[in-house]
């Protein structure tokens, strides 16, 4: 068989394609890297990638008379996979903007690449507040939430309700560490104490022995500084061992998918912080319905933010008439976001300041329609929810 000519033809085809990408008439490329297959794949994952595509479609599929192309990849929660993919896309494909999905370790690694290569990097799923503090960059926008906001919104409410003594069960990587540290700060600032903490590996198979240690601490609050599958399995084991009878369990990062998979009877009364809930207003409900029609479930706040962030970026490109990173970043920091997900401003450190919410999970009786899970307890304005200018450890912030 004549394989060689075929291969040669392919090589030429690919070569010219790559060359095309680097010109100003080729497509504007947006990259989305997240956990597509492991424990965070439901809260963001492939559906998150589809939201980026929806935003591109709704924007008209073109910007500056150039088609828009969306690239997606699975980082498998590995920082090295995430950063090398980002590097490859920027170097070989001429990527214009990168969206970072779940997992803080990967986001911190990608932010280094994006800042070195000067590409806007919009972080959605990752929570570590280091992204806009110690590790801040002029090209990073931390779009949805962060560990400081989770700690301030959920933590404050709990301590003020009289739960002064805390014990942490923490996922042993960047996100868990940040969340534990930020929550500890909030607890102590409100006159509470921390009895101790135990760290479990990401994607742990069994939580019972960690839970038993937590129970031994005799603290009032068992704070779960983990997420996704780790959170659901912790909750499940905690109920099995009756820990919820001696301690109040607080999930510091809970998504609606977790509540759905555990069921209301297992989560009733749980208070949680989030940046968005589908059943808030008409625009959000319209977006959620469209999502539901395709996926038969409701979108998480991250999936809504994936859509919103893509839109915000494309609007900035259109307004400035270029994909030049510095100009686009300046525009994003000037105008911020304004849609169903968020009406936020982006600060110099890259932190988007917008409203956060404290929700409480409804009881099975209170829930009247499918996915009707939360009632809003408090709406916390952005300047109270996130790191303040005075607290910031970012060198880009002028104090």
């Amino acid at each position, binding site marked *: 068989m004549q394989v060689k000519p075929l291969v040669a033809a392919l090589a030429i085809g690919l070569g010219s394609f790559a060359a095309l990408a680097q010109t100003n008439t080729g497509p504007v490329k947006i990259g989305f890297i997240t956990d597509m*297959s*492991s*424990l*965070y*794949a*439901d*809260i963001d*994952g492939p559906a998150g990638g589809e939201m980026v595509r929806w935003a591109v479609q709704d924007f008209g599929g073109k910007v500056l008379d150039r088609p828009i192309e969306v690239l997606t990849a699975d980082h498998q929660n590995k920082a090295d996979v995430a950063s090398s993919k980002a590097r490859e896309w920027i170097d070989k494909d001429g990527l214009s903007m990168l969206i970072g999905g779940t997992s803080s370790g990967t986001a911190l690694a990608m932010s280094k690449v994006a800042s070195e290569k000067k590409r806007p990097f919009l972080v959605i799923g990752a929570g570590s507040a280091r992204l806009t503090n110690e590790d801040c960059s002029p090209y990073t926008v931390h779009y949805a939430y962060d560990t400081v906001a989770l700690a301030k919104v959920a933590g404050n409410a709990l301590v003020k309700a009289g739960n002064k003594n805390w014990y942490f069960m923490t996922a*042993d990587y960047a996100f868990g560490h940040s969340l534990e540290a930020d929550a500890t700060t909030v607890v102590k600032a409100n006159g509470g104490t921390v009895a101790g903490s*135990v*760290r*479990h*590996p990401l*994607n*742990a*198979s*069994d939580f*019972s*022995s*960690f839970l*038993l*240690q937590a129970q*031994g601490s005799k603290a009032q609050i068992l704070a779960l500084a983990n997420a*996704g*599958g780790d959170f*659901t*399995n912790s909750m*499940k*084991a905690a109920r*099995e*061992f*009756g820990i919820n009878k001696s301690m109040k369990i607080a999930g510091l990062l809970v998504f609606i*998918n*977790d509540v*759905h*998979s*555990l*069921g209301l009877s*297992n989560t009733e009364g749980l208070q949680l912080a989030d940046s968005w809930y589908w059943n808030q207003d008409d625009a959000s409900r319209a977006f959620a319905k469209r999502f539901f029609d395709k996926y038969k*479930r409701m979108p998480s706040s991250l999936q809504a933010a994936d859509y919103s962030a893509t839109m915000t970026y494309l609007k900035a490109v259109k307004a400035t008439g270029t994909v030049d990173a510095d100009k686009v970043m300046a525009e994003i920091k000037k105008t911020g976001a304004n849609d169903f997900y968020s009406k936020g401003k982006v600060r110099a450190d890259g932190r988007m300041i917008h409203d956060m919410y404290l929700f409480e999970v409804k009881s099975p009786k209170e829930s009247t329609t499918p996915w009707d899970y939360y009632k809003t307890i408090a709406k916390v304005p952005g300047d109270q929810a996130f790191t303040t200018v005075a607290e910031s450890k970012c060198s880009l912030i002028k104090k």
Partner: protein
Amino acid sequence: MEIFGIPHQAFLGQLMLGLVNGAFYAMLSLGLAVIFGLLDIVNFAHGALYMLGAFAAWIMLDKWGVNYWFALVLAPLVVGALGVLIERLLLRHLYGLDPLYGLLLTFGLALILEGVFREQYGVSGQSYPVPELLSGATNLGFMILPNYRAWVVLASITVCLGTWFLIERTRLGAYLRAGTENAKLVQAFGVNVPLMVALTYGAGAALAGLAGVLAAPIIQVTPLMGSNLIIVVFAVVVIGGMGSILGSVVTGLGLGVVEGLTRVFYPEASSVVVFVVMVIVLMIRPAGLFGKEA
């Protein structure tokens, strides 16, 4: 009284929890050891079969209201039947080849099965309730043990011992072992060896399925539950000695305990401690703790 700086009550509690996890390791590594010992197949699909067992139980409950006790029998049968199909349709063609082919085939199968369930059910998982009869907990004096976990240890040890007895102490087991030593000769005595081999793989798969059903009320039933566990279970088999049935059971329980204690003394290392043990064992006894030197 304190043991290594922690109260002895907490110590005993952790020991007990280690045993519960060890029970799963034992049952899964037992299936692997049976399949490897008799078929020479490194069954990487074992984790996926375990996941299938849990999903089968959940689907039966969700769709047809089949309760836990029926699922405990039906789900392993379903998974076992699938195992027989896999052996007859796919694995059969690989006998006599390098074991690597079997490994790759079963690994591919595992990826496909997981992918299909991920596509269908997502990764957040489904909640399977603890059966009524076993809900509640018993105060053991040193800890409050959920009744269900006690049942898991009991069920697993019974199944493991039963399997060991079947293979090492019965006529059927003797046929099996003889069939793998010299298939032609055994066939000459009128024994249907291919059928026996297919049923063996089916039985190994059913064991994985049973472990899955037992796990369903404890952890979220997710497509990933198998792949999270399978690597550790392989390490257990390697430490116990590939193909050694009793070895895999004892090692499974033992490593569960080792892992449990690591979670207390140095939790950060709890996900690697099994592999550290594996390295040490392989350096001292390359054939594993209970394996025969080749």
